[in-house]
C-alpha cells in the first residue's frame, strides 16, 4: 500500500486506481455469485445435463450434518429379562451396567449424541440421531459385551458370563481398587489360573480389547481378587461397571423400533434459519442507514461471510448442527457486525477529531488500525473459550465450540480484510463525499447521535 499519509496531507489518495477497483469488484462479484449459487437448491434437482451426460453434485446446504434435536433419527426400546434377578437392587445395578455398556458401545460406533435411558421397570430406551436403518441399530446393540481373562500365552482362563459374580469399586489400604468376586465355578477356575501364572500377568479383556493387565502376586483360592492401579473412585467405579456389564447376561430383546422426528419439533431448524435471515436483513438495513457508504461495504462483507460460513460448516468434518451450534452461529454473526461497528466508530472519531484537515481515506485507514487491538483481544478470549470447550466439553458443547470457533475466525477475517478491501474499492470511486460515508460533522452538537 502506498500509505505515505501525513497529518498535513489534504488531498485524498487511494489504495487502488479506478481501473484496478473495477477489475477487483467484478472479480469479487463473480466469485461470490458462483459460491452463492451452489449453497441453496434452485430447482431441487441434484444433477445437470451437458450433452447427454448427467453430472451429479451436492448442494452445499444439504451436506451439513444435523443433530438429533434438529434432524431426528431412530429409537429402540429393549426389554431386559429381569426374572433371573432376586432383589430390586440387583436388577437396578444390572440394568445400569447394561445401559453404560450400551452407551459406550454407541459412542465407539461414532454415535456420540445417542441417549440411553431406563424406561418403566425393565426397559431400556435408546435414541440415536442420523441413523436410518433399523437392522443396523439392532445388530449394533443386540450383542452383549464379552469379558475374558487371558493368561500371558493368550489362553482364556475366565469367562465373564460364566465365572464372575460381580465387580465393585472399594477403598483398600488407602487406595481405590476394583474388587472382583467370583462364583463357585469361577473361584475354582481362578485358583487354578493364578497358581499357574504367579509372577506373570493375566489380562482382562472386554469385547476382545485389553482393558488392563494386572500381575498375579499369589495364588488366589477364596474367590476374591483385587485389581490395583492408580484409580480414583470415579475410574475404579467406571471400570467396575464395565466389567459388570460384561458379566451379566441381561437378555435384551427389542420390543419396538421406529424413526423419530426432531426432538425440538418439526420446523425448529427451518424457523431458526428464517430468524437468522430476518435478523441479518434488518442488521444490514440498519448498517446502511446509519453508516451509509461504510455500511454498504459491511453489508456486502456480511453477505460474503454468510456464504463462506455455509461452505465451512459443510466441509469441516466435526460439525454437527444442533441447537447449541445454531446459537454459536447467531453469536458469531453478531460478532461479525460488532467488529465492523467498532471500526466504523473509530473512523468517525478519527474524522471528527482530525478536524477539517483530515481526509476520509486517511480517517478510514486510521480507524481500521485503531480498532484492530480491540477486535483481536475480544475475539482471542472467545477463541480461547471455544478451544477449551472443544477439548474438555461433552459432545453437545463440543459442537457448539466448533461452530463458534469457525464463526469467530471467519468474522474477524471478513471484518478486517474483506470490509477493508471493499471500502478501498469504494474509495477509489468516491473519496470526496463526506455525506456518502456518513462522516460530516459540521454541527458541533451532532457528534454523537445515537
Amino acid at each position, binding site marked *: 500500500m502506498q500509505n505515505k499519509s501525513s497529518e498535513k496531507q489534504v488531498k485524498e489518495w487511494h489504495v487502488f486506481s479506478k481501473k484496478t477497483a473495477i477489475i477487483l469488484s467484478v472479480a469479487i462479484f463473480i466469485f461470490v455469485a458462483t459460491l452463492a449459487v451452489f449453497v441453496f437448491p434452485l430447482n431441487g434437482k441434484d444433477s445437470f445435463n451437458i450433452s447427454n451426460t448427467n453430472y451429479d453434485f451436492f448442494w452445499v446446504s444439504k451436506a451439513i450434518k444435523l443433530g438429533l434435536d434438529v434432524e431426528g433419527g431412530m429409537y429402540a426400546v429393549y426389554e431386559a429379562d429381569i426374572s433371573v434377578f432376586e432383589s430390586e437392587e440387583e436388577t437396578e445395578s444390572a440394568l445400569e451396567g447394561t445401559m453404560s455398556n450400551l452407551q459406550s458401545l454407541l459412542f465407539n460406533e461414532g454415535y456420540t449424541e445417542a441417549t440411553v435411558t431406563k424406561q418403566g421397570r425393565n426397559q431400556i430406551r435408546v435414541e440415536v440421531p442420523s441413523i436410518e436403518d433399523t437392522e443396523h441399530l439392532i445388530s449394533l446393540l443386540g450383542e452383549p459385551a464379552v469379558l475374558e481373562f487371558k493368561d500371558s500365552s493368550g489362553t482364556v482362563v475366565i469367562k465373564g458370563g460364566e465365572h464372575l459374580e460381580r465387580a465393585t469399586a472399594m477403598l483398600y489400604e488407602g487406595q481405590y481398587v476394583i474388587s472382583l468376586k467370583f462364583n463357585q465355578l469361577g473361584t475354582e477356575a481362578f485358583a487354578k489360573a493364578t497358581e499357574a501364572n504367579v509372577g506373570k500377568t493375566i489380562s482382562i479383556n472386554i469385547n476382545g480389547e485389553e482393558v488392563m493387565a494386572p500381575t498375579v502376586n499369589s495364588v488366589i483360592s477364596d474367590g476374591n481378587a483385587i485389581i490395583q492401579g492408580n484409580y480414583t473412585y470415579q475410574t475404579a467405579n467406571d471400570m467396575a461397571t464395565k466389567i459388570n456389564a460384561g458379566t451379566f447376561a441381561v437378555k435384551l430383546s427389542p420390543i419396538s423400533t421406529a424413526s423419530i422426528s426432531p426432538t*425440538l419439533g*418439526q420446523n425448529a431448524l427451518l*424457523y431458526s434459519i428464517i430468524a437468522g435471515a430476518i435478523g441479518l436483513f434488518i*442488521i444490514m438495513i440498519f448498517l446502511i442507514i446509519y453508516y451509509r457508504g461504510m455500511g454498504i461495504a459491511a453489508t456486502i462483507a456480511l453477505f460474503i461471510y454468510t456464504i463462506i460460513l455455509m461452505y465451512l460448516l459443510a466441509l469441516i468434518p466435526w460439525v454437527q448442527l444442533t441447537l447449541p451450534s445454531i446459537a454459536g452461529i*447467531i453469536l458469531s454473526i453478531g460478532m461479525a457486525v460488532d467488529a465492523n*461497528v467498532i471500526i466504523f466508530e473509530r473512523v468517525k472519531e478519527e474524522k471528527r477529531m482530525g478536524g477539517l484537515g483530515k481526509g476520509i481515506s486517511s480517517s478510514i485507514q486510521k480507524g481500521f488500525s485503531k480498532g484492530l487491538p*480491540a477486535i483481536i483481544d*475480544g475475539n482471542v478470549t472467545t477463541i*480461547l473459550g471455544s478451544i477449551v470447550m472443544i477439548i474438555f466439553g461433552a459432545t453437545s458443547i463440543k459442537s457448539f465450540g466448533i461452530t463458534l470457533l469457525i464463526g469467530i475466525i471467519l468474522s474477524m477475517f471478513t471484518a478486517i480484510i474483506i470490509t477493508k478491501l471493499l471500502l478501498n474499492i469504494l474509495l477509489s470511486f468516491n473519496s470526496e463525499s463526506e455525506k456518502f460515508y456518513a462522516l460530516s460533522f459540521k454541527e458541533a452538537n451532532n457528534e454523537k447521535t445515537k
Partner: protein
Amino acid sequence: MKKQNSLINLTGTKHKLSIFKNSGYWFILPLAIIFVGLVCGTIYSQIGNRYDGFANIGIDFKGGSVLTVEMNGAEMQGNNREANYELIASILGQNGLSAASDQNSGSDAIIVRYQNSVIGDNNITIDYNTSEMAEEMVAINNTVEQQVEDAFIIKYGPTIQIKANAEMINATASSDLLKKAALSVGIAMLLMLIYTAIRFDLFSGIAALSMQINDIIIMLSFVIIFRIQINSSLIAGLITIVAYSINNTLLIFDRVRDNIKLIRTQNLKLIPGEIVDTSVNQCLTRALFTSVTTLLTISILACMGIKSLSDFALPIIFGVLSGLYSSLFLAPSIWGLLMIAKQKNEIKKAKALKAQKR
C-alpha cells in the same frame, strides 16, 4: 498544550452517562434481581402451591414420562397431526399433566413427553418423580393410555387400531455432561482471566471475570423467576453468554487502555473516575448497537412460536441484557474502585516510606 487540558477535552467525548460517580448504585439492580430470584425459588419450593420445586427442572435432568400413540386405519400424522396432538395434550391436561415436547415416530405414531408433575385439586402440584410415588405415576400413566385410546376411537370410529403406551423414563442428560460442562466453562474462564490480565491489567481481568459470573447468576435468577425449563439447551445458552459477555467488557477496557496511554503521554494525573466515564461514553454507541443487533436475532428466534426455541432464546435474551448492563456499569465501576484502592495503598506506602526515612 495547556494545563487545564483534561482527558475529556483530549478525546472530545460528550459525557452522557456518569458511571463512576454512581458506582455504588449500579450494584443495586443485579442484587435485587438475585434476591427476587431467591425469594421466588423459595416460594416455589414450598409444598402446596402449583409449582413443584425451586426451579423448573426438565425431563433431561429429572426424568419424566414418554407417551407413544400409534394408530392404524386413520391418518396419525400429515393433515390430522395438529388435531391429534391437541387431543392428546387435552387429555394430559385433564390429568394435570402438561406436554413438554412432541415428535413424530415412524409413519403412524406421535411421541409426547411430559414431566411427572401433576397439578391436582386446588392447583397444588405434586412431584411424582420419587421412587415412593412411582407406582402412583404408573397408575396415572395407565389412566392416560386408556383415555387416549378411548378418545381416538370416539374421534375416528371403532374401525381404527389404536395403541397408547405411556412409560416413565429416567433422566437422559447424565451428571457426566454437567460435570464436563462446568469443567470446560471453568477452564475457559480462567484462561480468559489470564489473557485479560496479560493484555490489559489484572484489575480488568478480575472485573471481566466477575462480570461473567454475574451474568450467569442473573440469567439463572430469571430462569428461576419465570420458571423456564432447565434442560440441555439452557446449558448451551449459559455457555453462549459466557463467551459473549466478556467481549463487551473488553471493548470498554480497550478504551481504558488507550486513555491511560494518552494520559501518560500528556503527563496528566490519572483519575480513575474520569478514565472510566470517558471510556464508557466512547463505547456507548457501539455497545448499544452490538447488543441490539444480537438481541434482534435472538428475539426473532424467541417469537417464532416454537416452544423449544423460545425456551432456548429467552435465557439468552436475559443474558445479553445483563451482559450489556454489566459491561457498561459494573465492570468499569469495579475497575475504578480497585484502581482507587491501589492508589490509596500506594500513597500510604509512600508516606510510610517517608516516615521511615525520617
